[in-house]
């Protein structure tokens, strides 16, 4: 619609303001607010976390203590976040891919419409309601049907040790898997739908079955987009807060280290919910919590940049070429 950005034109526009130039650069100011928000967030978090980062240095990332006397270390919460997100990805990605393949390539039209609407509704359910359901329903299922049998047979293994209330890393990871399936499934489906039909026809032409078409043409063609969708799901799992807060138990310090699937723990997001609003202004604890916020910011930013690049390349560039 408009050409490349031309600085000279911009200055001329500022010198001789017209209603059109005003409108154009006025709306640019609003659009630029996104950039301002991200930069401001980074500045605010770095500034707030500064006392803790200078006092503890690298040991802020490797320490396990969490009290004013012995110092603050974020390692248990970083590991807790990674473990729950990993469980979510390992369970969520295969199921999401199954749904995406089913919806994009195999299901009859009626089923396709119904199932994709249900998947969209799953994405619309608020996080806190997943949390409530996780606390009163899923936790009991995990305790009775997963934890009890496994601990009965393999309870002597350290990674299966722990309490029997169901408030643990596994419940949190399972809940996260349920919550990220709609994201990964619908983006992967879009990526698969955007595969050109010539790819499918080539495979059908040499006598492939429908599954072989999916495997040879669709999956290999959309690999990087699906990878991007999985990473977007990972980003969701890492940032997800309230649902996890209600089922993970919320312990602090060295006992929050993820040593067993069935022990209570804490993630970066949940310790913020549990402690930030009560942290005293100016205290080292507040700075340490903001430091955790900063780490979360950095991880989420990196993950989303990579994911957007992967998905964007597949969906938008191809979409643009088709238009």
């Amino acid at each position: 619609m408009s050409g490349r950005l031309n600085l000279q034109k911009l200055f001329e526009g500022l010198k001789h303001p017209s209603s059109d130039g005003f409108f154009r650069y006025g709306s640019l100011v609003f659009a630029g607010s996104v950039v301002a928000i991200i930069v401001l967030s980074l500045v605010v978090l770095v500034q707030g976390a500064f006392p803790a980062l200078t006092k503890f240095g690298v040991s802020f990332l490797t320490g396990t203590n969490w009290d004013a006397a012995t110092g603050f270390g974020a390692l248990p919460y970083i590991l807790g976040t990674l473990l729950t997100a990993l469980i979510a990805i390992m369970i969520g990605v295969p199921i999401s891919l199954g749904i995406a393949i089913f919806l994009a390539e195999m299901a009859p039209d009626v089923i396709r419409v119904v199932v994709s609407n249900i998947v969209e509704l799953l994405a619309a359910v608020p996080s806190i309601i997943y949390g409530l359901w996780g606390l009163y329903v899923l936790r009991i299922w995990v305790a009775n049907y997963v934890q009890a049998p496994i601990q009965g047979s393999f309870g002597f293994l350290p990674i299966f040790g722990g309490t029997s209330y169901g408030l643990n890393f596994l419940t949190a990871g399972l809940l996260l898997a349920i919550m990220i399936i709609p994201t990964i499934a619908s983006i992967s489906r879009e990526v698969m739908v955007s595969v050109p039909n010539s790819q499918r026809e080539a495979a059908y032409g040499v006598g492939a079955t429908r599954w072989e078409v999916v495997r040879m043409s669709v999956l290999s063609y959309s690999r990087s987009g699906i990878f991007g969708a999985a990473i977007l799901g990972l980003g969701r799992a890492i940032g997800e807060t309230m649902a996890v807060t209600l089922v993970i138990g919320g312990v602090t310090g060295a006992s929050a280290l993820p040593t067993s699937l069935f022990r209570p723990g804490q993630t970066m997001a949940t310790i913020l919910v549990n402690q930030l609003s009560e942290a005293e202004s100016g205290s080292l604890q507040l700075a340490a919590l903001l430091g955790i916020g900063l780490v979360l910011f950095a991880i989420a930013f990196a993950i989303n940049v990579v994911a957007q690049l992967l998905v964007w390349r597949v969906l938008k560039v191809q979409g643009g070429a088709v238009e």
Partner: protein
Amino acid sequence: MSNYSLRRFKDRLALWLGALCAVLAMIPLISILYEVVKNGASTINVDFLTAAPGVIGQPGGGIGPAIQGTLILVGFTIIIGVPLGVLSGIYLSEFGDNPIGRVIRFLNDVLAEFPSVVIGVVIFTLIVLTLRSFSVVAGALALSIIMLPVVTRSTEESLKLVPNSIRDASMALGIRRWRTTLSVVLATAKSGIVTGILLAIARVAGESAPLVFTILGSQYFFSGLNSATDALPLRIYRLALLPYPYAQAQGWGAALVLILMVLVVNVGVRLATRGRLYSTRS
């Protein structure tokens, strides 16, 4: 021939595995809806919907302040977030075909997927710590930042569906670019933009993480922009932390109210736009 039947078997197997995945994903939704309705329906009555929470530990009281707080909070969020998002979307669609536009679009997509808890932490540090008070303003700001990228993206996508011939026709009549955009292009894309705004409202109405450090939650009805307030998602969280059976029942009741609000908007929007989105795209 046996090779062919093996391939056919694999094909069938893939179909049924795909269907199984779809069924697996539906179980949680069905269970959530079932549990929320089963446990929440008996709690809901006029008193529960309008009364303030009672003394902690004693049955009675309701979620009146939470419903009121959510409505006020969402109202302010709309006032801040919608104009910002729509104007950003206009820039990206009408003038954003340049490096600056591409950078903004990219960062907008990144912000859309950003953890809401981080946005809450930033507003807490910036507003709550500075003003030394939890407030509706802080909560509405946090929710606006969450709403902004969603509205921006849906506005841009709706505007891009407007054919260029409509823009050309308006310009050919000598109407200026800004007037064309606001009166002709925006009007043509109105339904898509409104759909995006409604879905964004439904999303922020259910947000809870950023509210913990911005409006904090309260036992009382709204008492000014500058003080702690309650909201439905936050009330559900506080109730879930209490060990009493009545709190559990009230939590389910509040969840039923929240899920009705969110799903009615979502299902309504989907029914209203059914078919239209697809026909304009192809």
